[in-house]
């Protein structure tokens, strides 16, 4: 099981990447920053970064305004 944003429980699959998870979640990652277990994941690594069973994944949506 992977926990996304401390809320959504997603079934973990062997070899699952950040890109795979985004497809399942329906995320458009143009303005999202990803952290896994407190570690920053660069966008260019989304296709290669494998998520482990039990990982704490945060996908922060960056909204305009300030």
């Amino acid at each position, binding site marked *: 099981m992977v926990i996304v944003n401390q809320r959504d429980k997603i079934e973990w699959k062997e070899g699952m990447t950040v890109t795979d998870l985004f497809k399942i979640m329906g995320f458009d990652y143009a303005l999202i920053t990803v952290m896994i277990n407190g570690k920053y994941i660069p966008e260019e690594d989304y296709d290669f970064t494998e998520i482990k069973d039990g990982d704490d994944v945060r996908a922060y949506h960056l909204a*305009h305004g300030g």
Partner: protein
Amino acid sequence: MKKQNNKKKKENVPEIFSKNVEGSYAILKNKTVGIAGCGGLGSNIAVALTRSGIGNLILVDYDIIEPSNLNRQYYFQKDIGELKALALANILKEINPDVNLEVHIQELKPKDVSKIFKNVDILMEAFDKAESKKWLIDTWCQKFPDKPIICGSGMSGIGKTDMLKVNTSGNLIVCGDQFSTLKEGLSAARVAIVANMQANEAVNLLINK
């Protein structure tokens, strides 16, 4: 035997900070916080941090104050037409003349981040555009993975106070609702709440870590 003096030694706290949390001034006066952007978030963050007793701030902004900024940014009629970073510096000095300010009048670019903010304890993201927020977080997390960055995301509209959250993962702290859009408009209270959430998290990190 000499009588022991049980009275706690009073720290030397300037009167303006005498109501602050005990012991906080001694720590915060030696800390440095960077603020990227001096608009709705940055101006309110800077004022809150200065009132908290932060000793050193680095302000970066290239923009000029317009009448439409006065609905949420910490500026006044007399400041219209002035550079935000300079007007903010004047306001902060009016609060605490001893605060050390480093002011950069420029549009911050990824290549400038290391040079300008290398000595800060915490960086505050205070941009308005989401794309700018993203590149600043990306740059910071890769250059300085051991230093916190505190961001504001989603503060448009009115009400929905209970939707404003602090979400922490490692050294990235995101304040706001993460979904409200500019179409809803920006109001003073909601922007200032998020700015003050950011400032509050910074003070907490600086004192307790």
